[in-house]
């Protein structure tokens, strides 16, 4: 959803604040990585499991530039937080612990099976497993799950998390949340029923084929009412998973230790290998890369990839310990259809032809560090992705522009000499202003003069996220990036292209696409519980958006990520935007 997604977007390209960069290498670690074993091999964690092991014990050491946005399961929206939360929260269903795209499959976690769907796709019923416990040993019941989900409604206290469940279950927000709930057990939400301690039934307002994906987000986690500290819950969440908090100092460190009350027999998903998990939070990305390579840490929790400097050293000296992972991020330029001359399809097409996609790719780091040239509006792991459809011949020309066709389109839109417009880029996103500068230079060749406007990512929701400001400032092209909240067409694209999602503020349909056909395709795809059928509809959506030349994807983002040689069971999971699946990790020594 809009607001929250913006946070996920912020994490995507971690900001390199100049001030912190200035102190780079102030206390540099030994970047030669002496004392390090040999890595499992380049890309050993892509599509397969690197260092497969069932060995228990030891300490897994994360480093992170950025702290969890919230440790409270109902308030978290960062992808990396969702990945990390599987250590201490459980959901009815969750992502499979398999490498690559296979991770996008949902498997039962606290439930005995995935949902029994009835009532024309409006009723979802789950039965809970035996032996579910809280960290104090008490039994975890369906009422705890209902209470946890109810917290989403209490938006005055529980801020920041995704609202998908609320929108699917109670779109009019008739329920006011557990803190204003007058019933005795605070379980007043009508849409969720708990006939007994082991059964939970969800009644949707209308069918939504992606509903189980919404339950797999940590916002579908249980919270024990007697342990709910409201806004302070983030400081010490109560664990239902194999680890519990020993220490949490915001923006400094996290330490998790084993939750001895958790029963392996109740949990088919989590191997729970290390005895201890630590996270050290440190703002300096360059320094973090160095210390990873020196063996002081194992994994970067943010998972946003190494810096250019870090990956150059890693490639030169430790290529065996890096993976080139495919994220679910798409870098794109939205062409604002309400801004002149982009109200004319031919002027939009001119941009598609004049853009040197290969040049943009190179500017952001090249094929390996930046990713593949995008020609579909969906990332590769989402059904609806279609690289075969290439109406502008971008793939055929290997990303190079077709200036003759661009000039042709300019003539057709009545601007044979080109035109002037404004291109926005966020200056705290690594590589974005650079890519915008490259695009500016490319478009100049056909007479399109794009002045670059830069601002911080935090400001974007009030600038490009506001149609009024976009109009006032004359923004014509918006360069940014986007990743899905859950891996379906709805979870990726509805905020971007559905006209009903255009908001006065925090709008992500930057192009202001207002096309009844697109809206209808979303409704049809969401209405079906058959994911393949939905995928076909999303393919049509992909075609429609590209044909209309309103939203120009240019890169399926990739990262270069470090895994220490001592880390075991490492694999990149599409479900967490290509990050390693944290819950599976272990270490092979007792340190």
């Amino acid at each position, binding site marked *: 959803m809009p607001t929250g997604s913006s946070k996920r977007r912020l994490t995507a390209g971690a900001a*390199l604040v*100049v001030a912190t*960069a*200035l102190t*780079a*290498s102030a206390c540099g670690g030994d970047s030669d990585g002496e004392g390090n074993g040999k890595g499992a091999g380049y890309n050993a964690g892509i599509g397969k499991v690197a260092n497969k092991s069932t060995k228990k014990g030891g300490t897994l050491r994360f480093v992170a530039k950025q702290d969890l946005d919230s440790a409270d399961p109902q308030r978290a929206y960062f992808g990396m937080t969702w990945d990390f939360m599987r250590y201490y929260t459980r959901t009815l269903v969750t992502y499979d612990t398999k490498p690559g795209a296979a991770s996008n499959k949902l498997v039962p976690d606290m439930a005995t099976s995935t949902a029994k769907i009835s009532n024309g796709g409006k009723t979802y019923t789950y039965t809970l497993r035996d032996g579910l416990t809280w960290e104090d040993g008490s039994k975890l019941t369906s009422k705890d799950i209902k209470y946890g989900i109810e917290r989403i409604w209490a938006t005055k206290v529980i801020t920041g998390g995704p609202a998908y469940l609320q929108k699917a279950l109670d779109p009019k927000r008739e329920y006011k949340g557990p803190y204003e709930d007058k019933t005795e057990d605070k379980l007043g939400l009508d849409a969720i029923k708990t006939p007994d301690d082991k059964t939970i039934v969800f009644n949707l307002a209308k069918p939504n084929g992606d509903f189980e994906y919404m339950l797999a987000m940590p916002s579908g986690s249980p919270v024990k009412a007697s342990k709910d500290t409201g806004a302070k819950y983030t400081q010490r969440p109560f664990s239902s998973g194999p680890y519990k908090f020993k220490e949490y100092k915001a923006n400094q460190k996290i330490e998790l230790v084993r939750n001895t009350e958790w029963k392996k027999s109740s949990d088919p998903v989590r191997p729970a290998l290390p005895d201890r998990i630590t996270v050290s939070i440190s703002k300096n990305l360059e320094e973090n890369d160095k210390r990873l390579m020196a063996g002081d840490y194992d994994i970067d929790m943010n998972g946003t990839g190494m*810096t*250019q*400097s870090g*990956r*150059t*050293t890693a*490639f030169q000296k430790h290529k065996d310990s890096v993976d080139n992972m495919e994220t679910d991020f798409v870098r794109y330029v939205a062409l604002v259809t309400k801004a002149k001359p982009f109200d004319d399809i031919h002027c939009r097409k001119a941009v598609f032809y004049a853009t040197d996609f290969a*040049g943009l790719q*190179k*500017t*952001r*780091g*090249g*094929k*390996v*560090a930046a990713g593949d040239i995008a020609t579909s509006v969906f990332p590769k792991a989402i059904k609806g992705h279609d690289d075969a459809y290439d109406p502008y011949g971008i793939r055929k020309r290997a990303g190079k522009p077709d200036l003759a066709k661009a000039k042709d389109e300019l003539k057709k839109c009545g601007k044979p000499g080109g035109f002037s417009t*404004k291109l926005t880029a966020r*200056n705290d996103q*690594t*590589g974005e*202003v*650079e890519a*915008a*500068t*490259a695009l*500016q*230079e490319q478009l100049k060749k056909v007479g399109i003069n794009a*002045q*670059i*406007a*830069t*601002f*911080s990512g935090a*400001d974007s929701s009030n600038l490009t996220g506001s149609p009024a400001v976009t109009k006032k*400032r*004359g923004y014509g092209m918006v360069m940014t990036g986007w990743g899905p909240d859950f891996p379906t067409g709805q979870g990726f694209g509805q905020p971007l292209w559905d006209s009903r999602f255009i908001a006065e503020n925090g709008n992500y349909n930057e192009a202001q696409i207002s096309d009844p056909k697109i809206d209808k395709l979303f409704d049809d795809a969401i209405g079906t519980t058959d994911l393949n059928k939905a995928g076909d509809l999303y393919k049509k959506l992909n075609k429609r958006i590209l044909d209309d030349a309103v939203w120009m994807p240019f890169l399926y983002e990739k990262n270069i990520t470090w895994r220490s040689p001592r880390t075991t069971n490492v694999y990149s999971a599409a479900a967490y935007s290509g990050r390693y699946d944290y819950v599976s990790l272990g270490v092979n020594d007792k340190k």
Partner: protein
Amino acid sequence: MTAPLHDTPADADPTEDVAPAAGAGVRKVEGRTLKQIAWNRLKRDKVALAGGVTVLLLVLVAVFAPLVVGLLGHPPDEFHQEELEDLTNLPKGAFGGMSGDFLFGVEPNKGRDIFSRVVYGARISLLVAFLAAVVAVVLGTIFGIVAGYFGGWIDALISRVMDVLLAFPQLLFIISLVSVLPDELLGLRDNGVRIAVLVMVIGFFGWPYVGRIVRGQTLSLREREYVEAARSLGGGQRHILFRELLPNLVAPVTVYATLMIPTNILTEAALSFLGAGVLPPTASWGSMLRDALGTYEHDPMFMVFPGLAIFVAVLAFNLFGDGLRDALDPKGTR
């Protein structure tokens, strides 16, 4: 030019200029203007002259940037990504891709010609530094002379304002100002707005330095006999301020302006470094330094050249300014 009428011995004591040795009528004593005296002294100061020549060169390079780049480089905004390595995106070849074609090498990731960008960067740096110094000198002289001459509550008021401005966190102010600026302002657009703001703000926060010096000088000058004389002859305040006092303030003000330019160059570079300078793709030294930060370990040359440009410009202006001060201020010690 005011060439000196007589050669002075190279080893002469500087004070000799003011009162040439009355060598038993060997030379006829002639009055010399301040300009002549200063030029004589400056000419003997080799370090200052070197600074002056460098400053002149920098100005010429900045003015004729298109010509220089046309002869020796590539257009500053042109991408040459074929000059970059496949995997690392760093320049091919040693020393950041330095070659006959790319004198200072190319940028990582984009492959733009660093030489051309350093040359064009000089335009922004010098333009902003000069204009800001002009703003500071004009404001500083006006307020300084008024405060010094009139004294009383006017002096107190202006002096307190100067104190406030000197204590003001200038960098923070500009950074926040730039982030709320509109794209168009008073008929200027985009980069025009940015440059105007840099000039006005740097100049505005710089005038109290000039103002204090001018005020101090005025305080002592207004008690001099010739001012008394002018007053007793019925000279109006405007006459005394601009005809009697101002000409005698030219020397210190000139010196201070010259010494202010390198400070302004540094301020502009710092602001560009922090992202509050000109907009991309326009080159400026500070923003080049920032761009170079990400790869300084593997491609140090990208950081060396803009850094060197700032260093040379600041040093040259400082040396020249110091020499000028020595030349214009006979009482000053070397």
